[in-house]
C-alpha cells in the first residue's frame, strides 16, 4: 500500500498599513487593551466600513510578487460565526470572488501553486480569566491577506520550505513585517493521506501553529497518525485539530463546520472592488527584486557561491547590509566572509537580530580598510569586530583605546624577536639543522608577546634575518 501525504497551507499575513482595514484606528502592536478601537471595529449599530486604499495596494503588490492574476472585479462577503472575538458575529472576508488567483512560487525547481489570495479583517483577542473571558478588540479589523496554496506540498520539510519562501517574499516586498511573535504571520495546515492512484482522503485542519518548525513537527505527527489509522483499517474523519507544542501531538478541537455553516453572503455595506489595469501596472513597478532573483544576481555579479548568496539574501536587511558595505569597500568575498562567519556567529551567540545589532555597514568597512592599510592585522580585526558588535564604537577609537595598532617599526620588532630567540636556543639549533618548521613556533611566540599586534610579514622577515638568512 503506497500512501502519500497531501498538504495545503493557509497563511494569514498582516499588511503593513498604519490604519485598520475598514476604519481609521491605528494598527500598532502592543497598545493597551481596547485603546485602538472605535464604533466601526467594535461593530456598534449604524456604522459603515470604508475600505483602506493602502491595504488594497499592499495586497495587490503581494499578489503580483506571488505571480497571481489580480482580478479586476472582486467582492467582500460576510463569514458568519458566533464567537466573542468577533463583535459583529461575522468577519468581512472574500469568498467566491477573491482579489487574486492562480499564482505560484518556486522551491528549488518545484512549483507550488497558489490557489488564491484574499483580503479579510482580523478578529479580537480572548483572554481566559477566572470564571469569565476578557476581550481585547485592538486586533479586530487589522488588515490581513490569506494566501491559500494548492495541495501541492508532499512533506513536512516541503511545508517548511514553502513557508520560509512565502515569508521571504512578503518581507522583501515590504507588505508586512511577518513577525510571528506579534501575530502578523500565522499559518493553518490541511493534510490528508492519499493512496497512490486514488482520490484525496478526508482532510484534517491543524491550528494553533506558532512557528514554522511547529508546522513541520505537527505535520510529522499528524501524517504518522493518519497512516496508522488507515493501516489499521479505520477511517480518518474530517476535523480540526490543535497542536500541542509541548507534547508534540495534535488533538481534536472540534468537528469542522462545513463551509455552508458560515452562511457566506455578499457584504451589503461594501461595493465591489474594482481594480483598473493601469493601477496594477503602476504597482508592478513597486514589486522589488525578490530573494531568489537577488541570490542569482549575487552569484553572478559578485562571484559568490550559491550557499553564501542564499545566506546573504535570506532576509532583505542582510542583503542591504551586504550591498551597503560594498559601496565603500568593493571586495564582495571579503565582506561576505566577515558577515557570514563573524557577524552571523555573534548574532547567533547573542540571540540578536541584525536590526537590533550595533554593527553598521560603515563600521565594518572602516575596519576592513584599516586591515588593508596594515593598521591592524586580520586576527586583531576579529577582536575589534567583537568590540564593535558589543559597543557600536568606531573601530579607530577601539584600536586606540585598546592599543591594538599593529607593530610595524623594525626596532620594536627586533626587541621582541631577540627576546624570543634568547628564550629558545633549541629552536635556533633546530632551524640551523634544517628544521625550517621551527620558524612557525617562534613566530607564534612573537605574536603572543605582542598580543597579536606584530605585523606578520615584517616579523617573519626580520626573524629570518636574525636567523642568518640573506634576505
Amino acid at each position, binding site marked *: 500500500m503506497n500512501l502519500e501525504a497531501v498538504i495545503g497551507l493557509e497563511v494569514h499575513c498582516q499588511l503593513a*498599513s*498604519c*490604519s485598520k482595514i475598514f476604519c*481609521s*484606528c*491605528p494598527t500598532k502592536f502592543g497598545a*493597551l*487593551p*481596547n*485603546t*485602538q*478601537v*472605535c*464604533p466601526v471595529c*467594535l461593530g*456598534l449599530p449604524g456604522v459603515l466600513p*470604508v*475600505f*483602506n*486604499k*493602502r*491595504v*488594497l495596494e499592499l495586497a495587490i503588490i503581494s499578489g503580483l510578487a506571488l505571480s497571481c492574476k489580480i482580478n479586476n472585479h472582486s*467582492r467582500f462577503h460576510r463569514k*458568519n*460565526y*458566533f*464567537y*466573542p472575538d468577533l463583535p459583529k458575529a461575522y468577519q468581512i472576508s472574500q469568498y467566491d470572488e477573491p482579489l487574486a488567483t492562480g499564482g505560484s512560487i518556486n522551491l528549488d525547481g518545484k512549483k507550488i501553486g497558489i490557489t488564491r489570495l484574499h483580503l479579510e479583517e482580523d478578529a479580537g483577542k*480572548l*483572554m*481566559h*480569566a477566572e*470564571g*469569565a*473571558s*476578557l*476581550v*481585547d*478588540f485592538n486586533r479586530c479589523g487589522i488588515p490581513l491577506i490569506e494566501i491559500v496554496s494548492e495541495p501541492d506540498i508532499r512533506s513536512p520539510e516541503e511545508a517548511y520550505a514553502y513557508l520560509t519562501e512565502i515569508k521571504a517574499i512578503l518581507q522583501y516586498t515590504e507588505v508586512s513585517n511577518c513577525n510571528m511573535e506579534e501575530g502578523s504571520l500565522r499559518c493553518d495546515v490541511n493534510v490528508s493521506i492519499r493512496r497512490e492512484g486514488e482520490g484525496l482522503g478526508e482532510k484534517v485542519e491543524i491550528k494553533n501553529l506558532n512557528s514554522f518548525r511547529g508546522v513541520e513537527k505537527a505535520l510529522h505527527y499528524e501524517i504518522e497518525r493518519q497512516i496508522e489509522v488507515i493501516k489499521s483499517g479505520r477511517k480518518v474523519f474530517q476535523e480540526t485539530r490543535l497542536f500541542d507544542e509541548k507534547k508534540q501531538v495534535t488533538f481534536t478541537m472540534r468537528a469542522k463546520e462545513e463551509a455552508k*455553516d458560515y*452562511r457566506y453572503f*455578499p457584504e*451589503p455595506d*461594501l*461595493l*465591489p*472592488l*474594482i481594480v483598473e489595469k493601469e493601477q496594477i501596472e503602476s504597482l508592478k513597478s513597486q514589486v522589488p527584486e525578490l530573494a531568489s532573483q537577488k541570490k542569482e544576481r549575487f552569484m553572478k555579479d559578485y562571484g559568490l557561491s550559491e550557499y553564501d548568496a542564499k545566506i546573504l539574501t535570506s532576509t532583505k536587511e542582510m542583503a542591504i547590509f551586504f550591498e551597503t558595505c560594498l559601496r565603500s569597500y568593493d571586495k564582495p568575498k571579503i565582506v561576505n566572509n566577515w558577515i557570514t562567519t563573524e557577524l552571523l556567529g555573534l548574532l547567533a551567540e547573542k540571540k540578536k537580530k541584525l536590526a537590533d545589532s550595533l554593527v553598521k555597514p560603515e563600521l565594518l568597512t572602516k575596519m576592513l580598510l584599516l586591515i588593508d592599510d596594515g593598521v591592524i592585522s586580520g586576527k586583531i580585526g576579529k577582536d575589534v569586530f567583537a568590540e564593535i558588535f558589543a559597543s557600536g564604537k568606531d573601530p579607530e577609537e577601539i584600536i586606540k583605546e585598546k592599543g591594538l595598532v599593529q607593530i610595524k617599526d623594525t626596532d620594536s620588532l627586533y626587541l621582541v624577536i631577540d627576546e624570543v630567540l634568547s628564550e629558545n636556543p633549541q629552536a635556533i639549533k633546530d632551524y640551523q639543522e634544517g628544521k625550517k618548521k621551527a620558524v612557525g613556533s617562534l613566530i607564534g611566540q612573537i605574536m603572543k608577546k605582542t598580543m597579536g599586534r606584530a605585523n606578520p610579514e615584517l616579523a617573519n622577515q626580520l626573524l629570518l634575518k636574525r636567523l642568518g638568512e640573506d634576505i
Partner: protein
Amino acid sequence: MAEITKKEIEHLALLSRLSLSEEEKNTLSQQIKEILNYVEKVNELNTENVTPTFNVLPLGERLREDKVDNKFDSQSLLRNAPESEGNFFKVPKIV
C-alpha cells in the same frame, strides 16, 4: 412548500449559540417555514441568464486614505458593554 426540520432549527440555534425551549423550537420552525414559503415565491421566476444583483449602484468601492484617527477613548466605548473589567470587555467564560 419549504420544510424545516427540528434538527435544522437545533443546528441553527447552535450556530447562533442560542438555547431554545421545545416550545420555542416548534414556534420558530413554524415561523421560519412561513418566511421561507413567502420568499420561495421569487423562485418562480426564471433567472437563468440574469446576473445576481448585490448592489444597485453601478459603482466600485470608494477607498479611504490610510490615515490614523484614534479619537475614541476606551472608557466611553466600554460603557456600552454589559460587563467590563479594567480595559477589557467581559464575556461569559469560553472554552
